[in-house]
């Protein structure tokens, strides 16, 4: 059924528009970045040549990560994260995947490659991907707030079912 959605012309609406844009752009970037790597691994032409760093420490980190196979995991998670972001599904999981990946990208760009001149460049995804991930995390803060529970009790194996309950939940119609 095609429902109508009413929007206020307010900062809240603008915030949601920005969050959706960040979700889609970051998702697109993750998909293309991950796909390019796997195209190379499959013997096909990549979308872009994998950067291996301009400065020595960056090169050492990137080449080592690729040669020991860690990039296989990173790039697979990038694709998973990108698809979830683009489809607007399991957003908290997508953000949990995006934050460490984009954090390392930021560290590589700023700390290892010394690109401090582009620290806040809106067109440089080497830093923007991390900022977008942080902003998205604030947009879904209620999912992460329980991480700060001061004293937690140990759970029970039967709580695995809560994962499947969460997968069935649609917050757009059931905002619990």
């Amino acid at each position, binding site marked *: 059924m095609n429902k109508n959605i009413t929007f206020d*012309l307010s900062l809240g609406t603008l915030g949601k528009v920005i969050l959706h844009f960040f979700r889609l752009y970051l*998702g*697109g970037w993750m998909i293309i970045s991950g796909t390019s790597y796997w195209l190379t691994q499959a013997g096909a032409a990549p979308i872009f*040549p994998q950067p*291996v760093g301009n400065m*020595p420490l*960056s*090169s*050492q980190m*990137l080449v080592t990560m690729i040669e020991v196979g860690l990039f296989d995991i990173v790039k697979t998670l990038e694709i998973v994260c990108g698809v979830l972001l683009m489809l607007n599904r399991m957003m908290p999981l997508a953000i949990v995947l995006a934050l460490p990946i984009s954090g390392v990208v930021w560290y590589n760009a700023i700390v290892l490659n010394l690109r401090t001149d582009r620290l806040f460049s809106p067109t440089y995804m080497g830093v923007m991907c991390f900022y977008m991930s942080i902003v998205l995390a604030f947009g879904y803060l209620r999912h992460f707030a329980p991480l700060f529970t001061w004293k937690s009790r140990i759970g029970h194996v039967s709580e695995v079912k809560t994962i499947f309950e969460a997968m069935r939940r649609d917050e757009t119609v059931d905002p619990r």
Partner: protein
Amino acid sequence: MPAQFTLSQNTVRALLVVVGLASLGNIYYQLHIAPGWQWGPAIDKMPRHVVTDMRTALYDEGKADFVKAEYLSAKAELDPALFPELEAGVTAKSTLLRPLLGDGRQVTAVHQLEINGTTRTVVDIIDIGARGGRIDSIQRYIAQN
């Protein structure tokens, strides 16, 4: 009270799909087309892989011109006098004495090089471009036997 406007759910979905596809297209353009990559056999490989393939083309297949065009960057820094094997028609045989040593984008080859009946032990320190690509410089050290 702030102004309000109403859109159908399908219109919102269509807008999001358009923005998503535009984002994908923009990122693809920025990474694939806009940089104007000079694609070739040296591009998008790990540094030791580049050097291995370059050595195969140069020493096993004798393709000096091919190596200069595809594996060396246009501004590659090397002393031509120390690299006679890069001259077309020169036959050179190389045997690695150690596995290739990689450190980031720098690869060191310790090899025995035979050219025109003269055999020498040579150490090449090879710097690869930042995109896993062509060789930016080679420093050659020849052992005094």
